[in-house]
């Protein structure tokens, strides 16, 4: 649960249970929203596209990939739509030239960080990162690639982990902690050296806490986590379980 969620929940518990309805503008369109809804959620309800990567419906927000940044008229600061709530009367701009430019560059940075070789990736054609490049009109990367030397962990009998494709969105960490409750995943070190790990940075197959549920694989946006024995064409991520579990979390919230 994000701090923002917890805070608004606490507020609504202590204050009167009435949720205010706000009206504001997104890209010149009038929208109405509950005060506890994020700009991203409202935009999606109104079919306004805001790119995201670390966000996934049903998991807590991190506000970390920065692809969903939007402008609020009159403020020089850009805000991440996934964790920012609407306010009465504001004008949100989701697609200015400035934002499009920043998003493309952020995406380029992600591509330089690891060795994303789409052509030989198990998720080729089903990858959110690959699709983002198309959506954001990123035809090439003008920063130097970093070419880190990374390993593959194929020790698990059903799944494998390829750090070269990992974008550190930490969806795996969150789904494992928040939904499966195993907290097998976490991220070690920091900065550019950050890596997702299982247990005490040991081979996934030897993890004592992994339940083998595979949720991490299904939420992974790229080919970093994949199912073994599946061809590229078959490697479609199935997230049908998330809305259901999200509903349970909603019940929990009431």
């Amino acid at each position, binding site marked *: 649960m994000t701090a923002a969620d917890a805070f608004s929940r606490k507020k609504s518990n202590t204050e009167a249970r009435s949720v205010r309805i706000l009206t504001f503008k997104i890209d010149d369109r009038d929208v109405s929203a509950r005060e506890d809804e994020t700009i991203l959620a409202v935009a999606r309800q109104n079919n306004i596209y805001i790119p995201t990567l670390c966000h996934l419906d049903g998991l807590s927000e991190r*506000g970390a990939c920065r692809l969903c940044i939007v402008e609020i008229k009159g403020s020089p600061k850009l805000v991440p739509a996934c964790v920012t709530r609407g306010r009465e009367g504001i004008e949100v701009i989701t697609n200015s030239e400035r934002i499009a430019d920043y998003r493309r560059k952020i995406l380029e940075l992600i591509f330089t960080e690891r060795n994303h070789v789409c052509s030989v990736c198990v998720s080729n054609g089903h990858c959110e990162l690959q699709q983002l490049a198309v959506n954001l009109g990123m035809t090439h990367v003008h920063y130097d690639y970093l070419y880190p030397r990374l390993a593959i962990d194929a020790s698990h009998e059903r799944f494998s982990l390829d750090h070269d494709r990992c974008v550190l969105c930490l969806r795996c960490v969150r789904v494992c902690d928040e939904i499966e409750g195993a907290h097998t995943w976490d*991220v070690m070190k*920091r*900065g*550019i050296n950050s890596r997702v790990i299982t247990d005490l940075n040991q081979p996934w197959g030897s993890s004592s806490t992994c339940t083998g549920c595979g949720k991490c694989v299904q939420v992974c946006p790229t080919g970093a986590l994949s199912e073994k024995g599946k061809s590229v064409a078959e490697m479609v991520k199935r997230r049908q379980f998330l809305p259901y579990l999200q509903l349970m979390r909603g019940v929990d919230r009431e």
Partner: protein
Amino acid sequence: MTLSLEELQQIARIEKDRREGFQHRIKICVAAGCLSCQSATLKEAMEKEVSRRGMENWVDVKGVGCLGLCTAGPLVFVEPDGILYQGVKVSDAGPIIESLGAEPIDALHCSTDLPFFARQHKVVLENCGRIDPERIEDYIAEGGYYALYQALRNMTPREVIQEITRGGLRGRGGAGYPTGLKWTTVAKAVNATKYVICNADEGDPGAFMDRSVLESDPHRVLEGMAIAAYAVGAAQGFIYVRAEYPLAVKRLRTAIAHAERLGVLGNGIFNTRFRFDVRVRLGAGAFVCGEETALMASIEGRLGKPRPRPPYPAEYGLWGCPTLINNVETFANVAPIIRNGGAWFAGIGTETSKGTKVFALAGRVNHTGLIEVPMGTMLRDIVFEIGGGIPRGGRFKAVQTGGPSGGCIPEQYLDMPVDYESLAEAGSIMGSGGMIIMDESSCMVDVAKFFMEFCMSESCGKCVPCRVGTTQLYHLLCKITSGAAQPSDLDKIEELCDLVKNTALCGLGQTAPNPVMSTLHYFRDEYTAHIEDKVCPAKACKMQPAKEVV
């Protein structure tokens, strides 16, 4: 047990009488700077000399906190004669004792008329170098804990905040947020449990004022925290201090134990219903934990990674409770403001920046050490008067303020008053108060690279712009300093600076490009010299142009 005003005054009186009982008092600096020049051994030798002569009853030898002029350590101060000795060796202990009451030893004498001492105005450091940091009585004798008594017994929490607001105190940790406003927000938050946190995770390389205050006058910080806790309605405080400062940690723990024993911390302080406990939490070597939300995560035992704000800590902080976070120097200003009044404090400094500021002078300057000057003091005065100018006839080039979030200020700004606004205008920030002076031997690209390496390895790795952006910037700067860069790389640097500044998640990331941007702004020719002519004007970089394929 609770303490009454009479008892507090009595402790002060006894301590003062004890001091009066000595004809001579020898104060030896035992803060980290002088300790690394063997001042602990010196203190032992001095004590031995005194007892050998049987003078224990009229000569008092005590270890005190930082005397400021670290470059000349170990420092010894003799009272009541007011003589300061510098560079004192163990073998000097005897002669100094001999000279008591007679002529001072010329060879060791350090004039306190030097601008280094005369130009300072001490508020935060008023007790540093005067009291024994390990004796609470010494602090009380200097009026310690009287402000807490005042606040608890004669003021409402609201009045306390009003006084702070009237003083115009602004956060000394970097951004300069008005302290009164911060306190008001936390005070207004409705919650049974609230916390007060002292941010002592002084991570800026080149800043050591917080360490000095904690090592030299820890009770001042505790008192400030207790007053803050009373003002905002908190009962529990944490001091988050770097594990790299073992001496500060030790003295803080001692101070807390003494304060608890005396009853100025704990239950029913000064016979009121107010209670306040303080715990020390150790940092573990992560600069990003200076950021409020990361710091709280770290106190909770988790990874010190910032989270998006809002909600701000004042509403949703430690364990979800409203939390007040101020830095060491900010808390150190609280007791004097309560004691002397906000109007007194507001009388020091400039229109928008009130009070004094402690700076750590270091780098290519004659007098390195800790200084405290009124806000608005001219930069030139700090560097050339107090700092004594550039050693070996060198030429001033720039002063770096604000650490990895700050910038380099060139010569043309020397006549600028040092306050929050002027520094920001010059492309830097006040930061926590590190001032590194650089002369012609420093390469500005290399300095920018140094800070970028710092930001890169201190990046928590959560958001993409900071995690990858700082790495890319560092690589580009390496290319420049090794002579392998092309002109287009400079465009990439500027573009990345803009990107990271505007899209990173937390303050660390957003300010990481500052050292690059400011050096690029003022010293662009140095960058182009590296790129186009493949030379480092300061001769600091080892240029090895890449082998060209022809």
